[in-house]
Each structure stands twice: as C-alpha cells, then as structure tokens.
C-alpha cells in the first residue's frame, strides 16, 4: 500500500516557479487538440471556466451538471466578492501581500507555491471578467470599486452588489454557452456523475445517471476534471445549496484518489441563526457586512433577553474590537466564529437558545446615513427581514456561525492532478490553496484561477505525455462500472424500510455538527466514530425509497448522496481525531492557548493528511505530504 505523494512543485524562487513551470510543460499542438476529449464534471466557477477555456483552446469538451442548467451551480450564491492583488487603491497591496495574507489566514497549512500562483493569476481574473461584461461596482469616475474583507488590511475585494458569485458565474456560464453554441462543448444537464472509470490505471471516463429518465450512461475521454464543490452538506444544515454533495469526489476516492484534510471545514461567522427543527438550510449574511456592522453581546447575562435597543452603550461588549483591536470586526472567519461561540458558551448569547450575537448597523447608519447603508447592503437586509421578520435598519441583526465551505478535498499536485493519472480536481473540490481556513472572497478567486488560468496549461502536459490508447466508453472497465452503479441504485430501492433519506441525513448531520463542528474533542470524535457505522447500518436496512430507478426520482437521488455522506463523515472524524492540534477551522479543545486561540503543533503536524481508501472504512491509510515553507516564517497568527 506504500504510496508517496509528489507535489511536483517546481524548483527555483517562489515568484518564478509558475512561469518556469509553464515553460517546462509539454504542449499539445493546436491541430491535435481537437483529437482529445475532456470531461468536466460540475459547472460552477471552476467547472464552467475550465470547460469554456479548454474548448476555446480546441479540445472537445463534455460538461456535466446535476442542475437543470449550468447557470445554477452553487458558486452563484457567493455574495461578497473576489480578491485580486490589483492594488488599484494604492494602499500597499501586492501579489506578495495577498500570498502572505492567504498563507497566514490558512494558519500555515497550505502549500506556498500554490498560494503564490493563486495570488499571481488573481489580477488576470478581474481583467477577464470585466472583458466578459461582468458589471462590477464602480466609482463615479468609472474605475472599479473595492472593499475590505476579513484577514486583510487592504481593500482588494471586487464586487457586484451582494451578488458577486452570481455575476462571475454568469460570466463563466456565458463563455461556456458560447462554446456550446459553437459545438465545442456538449453540455449534459440533470446528469449526475456516479463513478469514475479507470483504464490501465488512468482516469478515462465517468458513469452518469440521467436524473430525468434514470438512464445509466458511460462516457469515455482522454482526461477527467472534477469541479464538483465541497462537502459542507455532510452537516445537513449548512449555507450550501440543497443539492451540494460529496458523491463525485467520494466515488473517486473509492477508486483510489486520496482525500486530503477532510476535517478542515469553514464555519462562517455571520449566518442567520437556526429557528427550528424543520429548517432545511442556513442563510449566510455576507462577510462584507462586517465592514460596517459591529458585533456585540450584552455585558451582563441578565440583559440577554432584553430588547437590544434598550441596552446602553456601556453595557455592550464589542468583543471583537476589544480582543483584536487591530483587525476588530474584520478578523478571519474561524477567529470570529469561535469568539461568537465562546461568548454564547459564557451565557451572553442572544435570541432563541442563547445561540446568537448581534451585528449592529446603528453606528454606521448614524455615520453615513440610512441610504448609503441601503445602497451597500440593501438586498442582504431585505433577505434578513424576509426570514426573521425583523428590520436590521431598526434593530441589530442576530447572527450565529454555520458551516459554509470546506477547505479539504481530493489531493492534487501543482498541476491540479490527483494521484490517479488523468483525474484533475478543481475549485472547492480539491484541497490545495486555503490551508486550514479560507479567507473571505478567496473561493471565487480560486475557482476561476483553476479553471481559466491553471488547468488549461497543465492538462495539456498530461495529454501530451500520458501515452494512453483511445477509449470509446464501451470497454469492459466501463461496462463493469455501469453495472456496479446500477446495482447500487437497485439496492437502495430494494430496502423498502421505514425511514426517509432526509431523516438519516439529519441524524448524521446533527452528530457531525455536535462532535466535529466548531469545537472538537478526542472523546467526542471517538463517540462519533462509534455511532456513524451504526447509522449507516440502519440506513442500509431501514431506508425507504419509493418509486423506481427509471424515472425522475428525487428520493433515490437523495438516498445515493446520503449513503456517500454516511461513509465520508467517518473519514472526516477520523482526520479530526488524528490531527492532534488546532489550526484554522479545525479546533481541538484540548489544544488551545490560555486566551482560547488555536494552538498549532508545527513539529508534528506541518503536513497534509491525505487518506487512502483500503476497502475498510474503519482503516483508511494515512499518507503525509510534508509542507515545506521556504518563504514565510511560521508564527502564531495574531490579529490583535
């Protein structure tokens, strides 16, 4: 089972690695490109930008989305913005600073070379999006506007009202649809990938299920790109869209792809608190609100039930400003989330169950006026009011942390290729750029960097050097994979028990949130590891999925995804148990400073934990990729 991971990081000075690497990569001659077919699964920022760009280069592309249109992928929901080291504000930003902020924000658990490249290409992303007609916010003089996000002291975030993700995705989608119109991309909607197919050890295709007709199909290609997003929905309640799932990456994992750092999940500090057991999702309130909103709780526990407007200024604890004076309300997400939890644990939380803190715009409204605040955040305030029936113009918002993003994902090298040759992984689905915590406005940047500016170069090298024979999609390997997928569907339908897929999803999700959420302990994780196999066992003996496999069957779709979460959840807990330190979003309560901050153990854990499937879920094989820091000096993160 011995496996060593080669990250393929180019030699040479950090700032020149990418350029040197591009030069060293083998090229596919333009006339030959059309002889290669590439499968792209997922049409979010990473998938859509990759599919469009690869097609522009001349490759044949097949793109798949489980939604009814490529434009619906969950990237669309990102509100706040996208970072880029343009330094348009002349406030001291640079590629190096964005690199440094990202490495530090990730609590020194990301690869230097990847992050530096990300910062380098960030500027081209903004150019590309503007050229596509993305209507970014502008100043009266016609230049682009910027704002600040957590973990940075410069203004480098570009935005389009509170709908930046939507506008960037529609930009990538328009580029994709242009290629569809030109016939270079074949788009497959309402089509879910259920397995990846290996021929001669290389990833050569996928198996899909047509969600409308239930038809199981196989697709052969020369390379496969997974851009299938994160696994936040393992927790049942998260800010993710309902359909987000781990199935594509988990299936690839079971075919041999290593899963890296599954315990790194991001808990976003500003979400609308949960209101009851019926709840199906949590709604995020953009981090950009922390530019003007001030976070506080009552100083006295006796005041927590009071109308916040009746609590005088000197009886409020603006705890972020108090504890972190230099970053104040703009500390990184993991820090803000944990601080909120600490205040609630101390009994100072507000709202139902004491699980909330205030985000107050009173001071901003006084300073710049209600109309300016409305222009900046109007749509978010409206969304808040619709859900809670309270107006943030009149009374402070109540917020609480919620699962938002996952930094872990399939292991990839510098070329974004997993340990399975030919299987590339982009965007949130890979693990590579954010370490143990992602900074705000960096997800959009990474998705588009991977799709527009990295994979188009690196995949060519693979195609030019892999030396594999063509496949048609009818080889025995494909047939066997299709039979397996079909058997799995049949098995889910044959159980005929009494519990719905959702009830199992909820049970797993609440357990993960409790034991593997914002605070984790060795004992709690062990408890979860004991319980998850039991839930799984009940799932496979008491699941109720009605209808058949040959039609549009929402319960069957859901059941397949929950089955994968039930296996994946165990790996997440195992990784969290194994990482006996706290870093970024991974907080082990046993490892903290006196002030309650994350306490890293650099001697023992400065590595990527990549897990290999062994056939036994209880005994995955841990492979470590040491993280080598040549440029930055590992230090304790301080935002004080």
């Amino acid at each position, binding site marked *: 089972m011995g496996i060593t991971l080669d990250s393929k990081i180019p030699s040479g000075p950090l700032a020149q690695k990418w350029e040197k690497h591009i030069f060293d990569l083998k090229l596919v001659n333009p006339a030959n490109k059309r002889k290669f077919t590439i499968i792209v699964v997922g049409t979010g920022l990473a998938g859509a930008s990759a599919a469009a760009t690869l097609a522009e280069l001349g490759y044949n592309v097949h793109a798949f989305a489980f939604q009814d249109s490529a434009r619906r992928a969950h990237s669309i*929901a990102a509100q706040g913005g996208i970072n880029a080291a343009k330094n348009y504000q002349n406030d001291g930003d640079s590629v190096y600073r964005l690199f440094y902020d990202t490495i530090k924000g990730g609590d020194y658990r990301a690869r230097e070379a990847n992050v530096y490249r990300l910062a380098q290409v960030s500027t081209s992303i903004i*150019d590309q999006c503007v050229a596509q007609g993305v209507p970014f916010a502008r100043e009266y003089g016609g230049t682009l506007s910027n704002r600040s996000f957590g973990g940075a002291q410069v203004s480098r975030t570009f935005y389009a009202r509170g709908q930046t993700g*939507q506008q960037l995705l529609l930009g990538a*989608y328009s580029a994709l*649809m242009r290629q569809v119109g030109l016939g270079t991309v074949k788009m497959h909607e309402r089509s879910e990938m259920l397995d990846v197919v290996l021929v001669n050890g290389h990833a050569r295709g996928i198996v899909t299920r047509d969600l409308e007709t239930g038809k199981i199909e196989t697709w052969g290609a020369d390379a496969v790109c997974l851009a299938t997003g994160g696994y936040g929905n393992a927790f049942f309640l998260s800010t993710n869209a309902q359909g987000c799932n781990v199935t594509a990456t988990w299936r690839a994992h079971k075919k041999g792809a290593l899963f890296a750092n599954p315990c790194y999940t991001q808990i976003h500090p500003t979400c609308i608190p949960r209101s009851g057991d019926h709840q199906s999702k949590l709604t*995020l309130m953009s981090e950009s609100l922390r530019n003007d909103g001030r976070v506080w709780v009552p100083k006295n526990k006796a005041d927590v039930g009071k109308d916040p407007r009746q609590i005088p200024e000197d009886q409020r604890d603006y705890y972020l400003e108090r504890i972190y004076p230099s970053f104040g309300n703009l500390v990184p997400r993991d820090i803000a989330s944990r601080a909120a939890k600490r205040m609630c644990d101390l009994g100072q939380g507000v709202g139902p169950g004491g699980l909330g803190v205030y985000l107050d715009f009173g001071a901003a409204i006084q300073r710049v006026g209600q109309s300016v605040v409305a222009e900046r955040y109007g749509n978010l305030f409206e969304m808040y009011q619709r*859900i809670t029936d309270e107006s943030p113009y009149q009374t402070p918002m109540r917020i609480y942390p919620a699962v938002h993003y996952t930094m872990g994902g399939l292991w990839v090298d510098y070329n974004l290729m997993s340990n399975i040759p030919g299987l590339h992984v982009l965007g949130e689905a890979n693990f590579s750029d954010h370490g143990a915590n992602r900074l705000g406005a960096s997800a959009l940047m990474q998705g588009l960097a991977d799709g527009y500016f990295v994979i188009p170069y690196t995949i060519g090298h693979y195609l030019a050097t892999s030396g594999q024979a063509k496949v048609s999609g009818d080889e025995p390997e494909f047939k066997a994979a299709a039979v397996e997928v079909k058997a799995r569907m049949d098995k889910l339908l044959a159980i005929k028990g009494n519990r719905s897929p*959702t*009830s199992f999803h909820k049970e797993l999700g609440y357990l993960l949130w409790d034991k593997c959420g914002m605070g984790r302990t060795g004992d709690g994780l062990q408890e979860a590891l004991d319980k998850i196999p039991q839930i799984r066992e009940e799932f496979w003996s008491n699941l109720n999925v*009605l209808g058949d496999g040959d039609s549009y069957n929402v319960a069957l779709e859901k059941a397949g995804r929950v089955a994968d979460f039930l296996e994946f959840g165990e790996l997440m807990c195992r990784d969290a148990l194994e990482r006996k330190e706290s870093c970024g979003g991974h907080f082990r309560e046993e490892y903290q400073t006196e002030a309650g901050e994350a306490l890293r153990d650099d001697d023992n854990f400065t590595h990527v934990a990549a897990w290999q499937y062994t056939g036994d879920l209880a005994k995955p094989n841990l492979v470590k990729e040491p993280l080598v820091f040549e440029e930055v000096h590992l230090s304790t993160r301080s935002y004080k």
Partner: protein
Amino acid sequence: MNLTLKIWRQKNREAKGAMESYPVKDVSPDMSFLEMLDILNEQLQSAKQEPVAFDHDCREGICGMCSLVINGLPHGPDAATTTCQLHRRKFKEGDVITIEPWRAQPFPVIRDLVTDRSAFDRIQARGGFVSIGTGHAPDANAIPIPKFHADLSMDAAQCIGCGACVAACKNASAMLFVGAKVAQYAHLPQGQPERNRRVLAMMDQHDKEGFGACTNYQECEAACPKEISVRVIAEMNRDFLKATLLGTEL
C-alpha cells in the same frame, strides 16, 4: 397551523397530470414555503406515497432553480420574492393553497412541479455573451465605465433565469429574460461590437423555441423576483429595430 395543499401531480412528460389534495399538519409560521413541502414529502413517504418533485437548490433566491405557481401567481403572492424565500407566515390557518408548475408550452413538465427550461440555455448560447477568449483581456481599469451605466447594466444582470416572466405572460413571452441579457451588455462598452448581432440571434432563438411576442401587459415585471423592469424590453426593441434596419447578418 393546518393547511390544505392542492398540488399538480404528473408522472412524466407523456403522462396526463391531475391536481391532488393533501392536508399538512403542524406547520410552523417560521417555516419557508419549501420547508412546508419538505414536511409534506416526509408525511407522504411515511404513508408510502411518492414525494412531490419540485425544483429547488440554493433556497436563498439566487440560483433561479425554484419555480411553482402558487394560487395562480408565479413565485407566490409576495413582490420581489422567489418561492424559496416565501415564508409560511404569509398564510392563515385553514387556507387552501394551489401549487402548479410553470405553465408554458416551451417549458414542458418533466414530473409533478418540475419543468424543462433548457430553452433559456439555447437562447443564451445563440448570443448571450461577449466573444472574448480567456487571456485576451486588457487591464480591468483600461476602459472607465460611468457608474450610471455600470448600475443600469447590473440592474439587468440580476436576472436569475427562473422563467417566472414566461409563466406570468399570457403569450408565454420570454422577452423580459432576453431583454435583461441584451440590456446588460448594451450598457457596457464590452458589449458594443456584437450588440446588433446579439439581439437578432437571441430573438431568433426565442421565437424558434415557441415563446410568444410581448403585447405589453407587463405581468412579467410584476412576477419577476428580481424586479427586472420592462424598460429592458423597450431597450431591446429599439436595438432590434436598429439592427434590422442596418441589415445585420445573423
């Protein structure tokens, strides 16, 4: 709170559908409309009946996946609100609520409340883009764009492609959808080189898909969850006329 839901059930594209009545019990006022359907689906499944299929994904009003004609109104009674953002507190004890799919010939029903909106993608593929390949872009600040124009472009760009405009229109016209895309680019310098061709190509596909013409009832604007103004249709008509007069080739 107890309610009765009358819901369109249809097995597949070919099957004949019908309205079915379902009581739902213990609905909390804090629930969203779709969470109420979740509860109904759990109740149906425990009674060994197949759940109701409906499209949804983000549940925060941005992906455009959710649909539903609620009591005759696309996305329900609230202005500027998608179905997924509709809350239960808008209804009263004992209410009977009818729930139907988008009704328009270019949006065939796939199952129950789920329709096929791929016609929108095909319209987009004909011209809803700026033809610029990755890597060709000049510096983002090279061309200043007056805030006023950038804002008008953004107003139009907010369209989520849900199709409520079509469902609301007695002609099943998709001109609000097409107009929004056309206007987004028309207000930006990047959209100018293909401005004439874009409007003709997109409208050509619009007509081929079987969407009707706009006869100015403005129901689309009222139903649009993003409050896209019918102004975009007027702007598009102007562009369309100009492009036609100039003899632009498709």
